[in-house]
């Protein structure tokens, strides 16, 4: 489709050195398209949290970005341990971060709630032992 941009990034689990590249690239793309700064900011926060979730918990994952003149969609799939209790994971302050992750400034239990707060649509589904899928929409 002409007025639609689809891009995808592979993210490797435990790759802390490369962590954040996909979300930086997503942000650059949106800025290059002239997306409103406040919208860029929300997508930047959401995509970074999503990317770090893959890096910290999963073995690998993909982030797919779709931009149309009206909406920005982000689909994040990972192969990893999955989330047993999504409702609990969505609570502010709930975290399963290890001491090392906390050392890096994560693990305040803000990730998923923060992503939801910054998106206009937020769907999460997960299968324990298989992985997690996020479908996020931010309206322009």
């Amino acid at each position: 489709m002409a007025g639609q941009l689809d891009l995808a990034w592979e993210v490797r689990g435990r790759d802390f050195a490369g962590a954040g590249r996909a979300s930086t690239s997503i942000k650059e793309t949106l800025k290059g398209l002239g997306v409103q700064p406040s919208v860029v900011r929300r997508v930047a926060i959401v995509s970074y949290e999503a990317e770090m979730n893959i890096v910290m918990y999963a073995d690998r994952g993909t982030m797919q970005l779709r931009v149309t003149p009206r909406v920005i969609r982000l689909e994040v799939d990972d192969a990893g341990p999955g989330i047993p209790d999504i409702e609990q994971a969505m609570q502010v302050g709930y975290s399963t971060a290890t001491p090392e992750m906390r050392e890096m400034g994560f693990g305040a239990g803000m990730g998923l709630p923060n992503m939801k707060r910054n998106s206009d649509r937020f769907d999460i589904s997960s299968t324990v032992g298989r992985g997690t899928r996020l479908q996020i929409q931010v309206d322009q």
Partner: protein
Amino acid sequence: MTGQPVPSMRFEPERCRGCTKCMRACPTEAIRVRRSLALRLEDRCIDCGDCIKAYPNGAMLPVTDSMTDLSRFDCKVAIPSPALFAQFDPELPLGALFAGLIGCGFDAVESLSPACDAVMAATEMFLSEHRGTRPVISSFCPTVVRLVQVKYPDLVEHLLPLEPPREISALAAKKRLALERGVAPERVGAVYLTPCSSKMVSVASPSGPEPSHLDATVSIAELYQPLSAAIAKARPPDVADSPGGETATGLSWAFLGGLPGTLPAEHSLSVSGVSNVIRIFDDIEKERLRHYDFVECHACPEGCVGGCLTVENPYVARAKTIRRIHLLGLAEAPDRAAIARRYRDGEFRLKARPSELPQRSLDPDISRAIVKMKQRDRLGAHLPGIDCGACGAPSCRAFAEDVVLGEAQMSSCPALWRRKIAKRARELASLASPRRTAKGEKP
């Protein structure tokens, strides 16, 4: 006083050989080389001066005022950046340096230190009552402010909404001279002795709606020689070590880590150099640094002592400043009650936040921008990806973007035509080869 921004540098085509040094040094990809001449893209330039540093005495030259430009004022007051003191031996009394400035033609000298103390204390006061987005980004370096406006417009609300010390000093100097010498304030020229070209831009076209209190800027590098001579010539017998009432905060203002000297270290960050500032801004955008209160940002490496209009090595300049602070036995002792009163009166507050000035996107219409981005990425896939700069763009990606925008042609990529020539050569070689015949046919 917004309107057309004033460029911080002027380009002299006859000095340009199209060597691409300035283009490759530019942290915001704001330079192209077309027909062997450098070209500055105004909407991307943040006046950092990295192009000037990459090729001193090249074709990009800083725009500042000369001493003769200042003759329009009845009374000229010099406001030296503390980076000026850092160019000289710390044993040289500042009284001699001030006398040298008078010898160079200034009528008075105003120290920046009292304003630095006041603004630093006001920053602490602001941070203690600030409930908005964190971290707060220091707004004293005009290039940092411009970087936010152009490349990180969503971070404008993070900028510290206080006037920089140079503005506070300029206003104070004008009032003082009007009182002491009976000169009308508008006839007093407040001249900042600057370590970089971006201060000139902040004087001529400020980021906010208010005009600057400064009237001109003179380059420290240009002043260095005449000032050294004037100091030697003046040689006043009994000069004060610190006639302007220098303070540790004031002298440290010019180097990295000097600003948040009185803030709790675990809650602030100090960053210098545009590419490092960009990395920090990327993290702020992702809300990675919301646990920090304050980020001190300098566009020049090591702070103002690393400006493109200084002469001394920035690391040596820093050491000299620390030595001078030690020799003067300076300690922090600002009158906080008086500053708090001025803070509450709003004296330090910026009248308006700097506006968002996002750089030009691929197209003002987002559907067309999407189409152009796809074209750019398709073209980019054909390019070698080595960012050699021979085409006149700083990266293959920037080149592909220029092609899509109709500002460059694919044929400018030397790697592409080498590939084409190699292919033609193979074709010719195989045509000439006797083995290339139809199957079974004897040559």
